[in-house]
């Protein structure tokens, strides 16, 4: 099966689960860790175009990407050891995907019926004579205070997720930066690159303090895997808990699966 055959180009996916499920279904695969690792690249390809997602959903894509990377690194780096929490998040993603698929399928039952054979609830008032019945104490002033109440509860635009996303570097930028670094220093460690002072395990997501840091590491890791795929670098890990070292490499074609 060709890697490029299933590339998603112009479609808009509202959420990461929707994208992931579509990728799996296009390959006619079942939902499990093997299928997830096989569609990880296409998913990452999509995350690279983050700019075209509706604002606020980017962070959701990156969080799912982080779990996909765990799964991917399991198949990419033999011997990698995941913590119970990491294993849990893989199982959890599978469960979420399964229930999402069920909901999506069930929503078709609603779609099929919605607006077709409608039951009309009686709308118009059936009163022969209307008796003017105002509230006690209904005045200009009470209407003003109700109006103020309405205005104060108008919805505010949700800005939080956008801020998180804007602070992050794009995947493209990250790849450029990584390529440059690799050219300058023949060998560097993953944790140097991700710019963290903390020890990072091979999964790239452990022991991080803030979510932003975590997302930064994920993006770095995504970029690294991308370079591995393109055959520009080679990833080495001597021991399970050791840092991952990155080396330039131009000889072999990438060997993924």
């Amino acid at each position: 099966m060709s890697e490029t055959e299933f590339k998603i180009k112009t479609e808009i996916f509202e959420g990461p689960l929707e994208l992931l499920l579509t990728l799996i279904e296009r390959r006619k695969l079942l939902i499990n860790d093997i299928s997830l690792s096989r569609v990880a690249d296409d998913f990452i390809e999509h995350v690279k175009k983050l700019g075209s997602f509706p604002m606020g959903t980017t962070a959701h894509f990156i969080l799912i990407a982080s779990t996909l990377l765990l799964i991917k690194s399991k198949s990419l780096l033999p011997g990698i050891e995941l913590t119970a929490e990491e294993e849990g998040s893989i199982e959890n993603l599978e469960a979420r995907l399964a229930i999402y698929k069920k909901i999506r399928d069930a929503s078709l039952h609603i779609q099929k019926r919605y607006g077709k054979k409608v039951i009309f609830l009686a709308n118009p008032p059936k009163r022969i004579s209307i008796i003017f019945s105002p509230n006690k104490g209904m005045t200009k002033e009470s209407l003003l205070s109700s109006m103020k109440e309405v205005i104060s509860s108008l919805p505010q635009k949700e800005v939080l997720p956008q801020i998180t996303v804007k602070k992050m570097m794009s995947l493209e930028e990250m790849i450029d930066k990584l390529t440059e670094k690799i050219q300058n220093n023949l060998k560097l460690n993953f944790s140097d690159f991700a710019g963290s002072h903390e020890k990072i395990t091979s999964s790239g997501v452990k022991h991080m303090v803030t979510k932003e840091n975590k997302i930064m590491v994920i993006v770095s890791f995504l970029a690294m895997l991308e370079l591995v795929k393109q055959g520009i670098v080679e990833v080495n890990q001597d021991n399970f808990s050791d840092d991952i070292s990155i080396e330039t490499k131009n000889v072999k074609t990438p060997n993924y699966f």
Partner: protein
Amino acid sequence: MKTSLDIKIEAILFFQGEPSSLKKLAEYTESSVEEVKDAILKLKQRLSDGGVVIVENRDEVSLGTNPEVSSIIEKINKEELSKDLGKASLETLAIIFYKGQASKREIDYIRGVNSGFILRNLLIRGLVCREEEKGERGFIYKPTIELLAHVGIEKAEEMPEFESMKKELEIFLTAKNTDEQITDAEQ
């Protein structure tokens, strides 16, 4: 299954909630006035002994509550009219007052919930009236003359802090358009 004429007529009368001429019923159901008459006879038999009965008045028919239950209905009606209006009703009224008139769509959008049943209740109490919206399916709501008099104004501009309230609503309603584009993209 082909739905029989009496069922169609029953549904129409129920939905309209007001008297309908035999001619109109024939038109709606694409049948003759004679057929409608027969169907109404059939319907009358079927509905006898129920809570809802056929009421005939010259060449108009409507559904009405069975006279046997009129005492309960009267009690409910009184209770409904004398009950204090809730927060949601007062807010809906305030929007209609400050906008001078408002479509159901605008009211729903401003309040973030569907106002159908609240508007219905305001209509029953004679606090608002409505007319069909031009060019669109839907209604526009206005305060009744009685209510304007009760509050002591003749037009919306006389409401306290009118300009600032109006402005806030307009800002929100203008932003609506951009929001809708986002939804379309998401769906």
